[in-house]
């Protein structure tokens, strides 16, 4: 019954919406023109990066906070924190099983390439598709691969150094967002320095996001990793 009602509601909704979408007139406002005007002052040449880190940079600031919240949630869920030991520094007790040599070799080969590619993607973001998040995702993938090769261990709780590294990008972003408050608005970069500031934010974010994204996986991985 619930099935029937939900499915027919979804079908009716989709049919109605598609029907009205088919003859939707053009939008009254076109932000493309506004953005094109703003591009010279944005500090970057790639429009998506300009939106992501300049005109709507505030969205991105909050988005990083969302990621950190998710990381905290994962830390809570993975915490089998031993209250009697030093909290916050509980390295995983890994069962020492050697990784597949193929995986090891692959990881050793791919990781340097991934780092170089990530740096390229980060740097390219100013002019063409790419940027902090994509670079971070590549690095995170490399970290996960290193984990499968048993080079990077999983952990139940991030150590202090890891926590600092995971937050550093967010902190840099926060500071750069706050400094313009002295004379203007939140995240209002001086146009001359905008390119440099955006690069600084993106570099910090790449490292931190890579750790956070990999953390979403590695903090949980030990449950399974120990049993392999």
């Amino acid at each position: 019954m619930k099935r029937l009602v939900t499915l027919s509601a979804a079908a009716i909704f989709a049919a109605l919406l598609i029907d009205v979408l088919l003859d939707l007139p053009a939008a009254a406002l076109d932000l493309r023109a506004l953005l094109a005007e703003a591009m010279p002052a944005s500090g970057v040449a790639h429009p998506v990066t300009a939106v992501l880190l300049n005109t709507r940079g505030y969205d991105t600031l909050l988005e990083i906070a969302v990621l950190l919240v998710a990381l905290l949630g994962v830390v809570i869920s993975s915490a089998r924190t031993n209250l009697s030991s030093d909290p916050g520094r509980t390295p995983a007790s890994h069962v020492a099983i050697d990784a597949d040599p193929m995986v090891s070799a692959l990881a050793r080969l791919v990781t340097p390439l991934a780092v170089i590619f990530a740096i390229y993607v980060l740097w390219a973001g100013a002019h063409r598709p790419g940027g902090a998040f994509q670079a971070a995702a590549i690095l995170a993938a490399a970290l996960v691969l290193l984990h499968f090769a048993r080079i990077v261990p999983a952990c139940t709780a991030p150590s202090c150094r890891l926590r600092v590294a995971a937050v550093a990008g967010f902190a840099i972003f926060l500071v750069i967002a706050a400094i313009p408050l002295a004379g203007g608005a939140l995240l209002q970069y001086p146009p001359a320095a905008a390119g440099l500031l955006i690069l600084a934010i993106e570099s910090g974010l790449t490292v931190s996001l890579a750790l956070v994204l990999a953390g979403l996986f590695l903090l949980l991985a030990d449950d399974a990793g120990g049993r392999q």
Partner: protein
Amino acid sequence: MSAALAFDLLLVALLLLAALRAMTTPRLGQALLAFVVFGLLMALAWVRLDAPDIALAEAAVGAGLSGVLLFDAWRALRGEPPDEASTAEHTR
């Protein structure tokens, strides 16, 4: 019908198929596989929409990282719950 439109139609059909399979295939492993395929098809769709940034992110995250996360979770759920004795020890 132009070739481009034909390709778009095919891609959309495959997207819907992969999504439906991910949700309805009886076997979870195949469902996860269908989901990873869905992520790759989404990346292709973003390329078709002139959004290479999203395509890159979708391929890296949607298909890559989420896929690994999901398969790892699946493996953890299939196995017996982790050593209950040790968990109990930890919480004491």
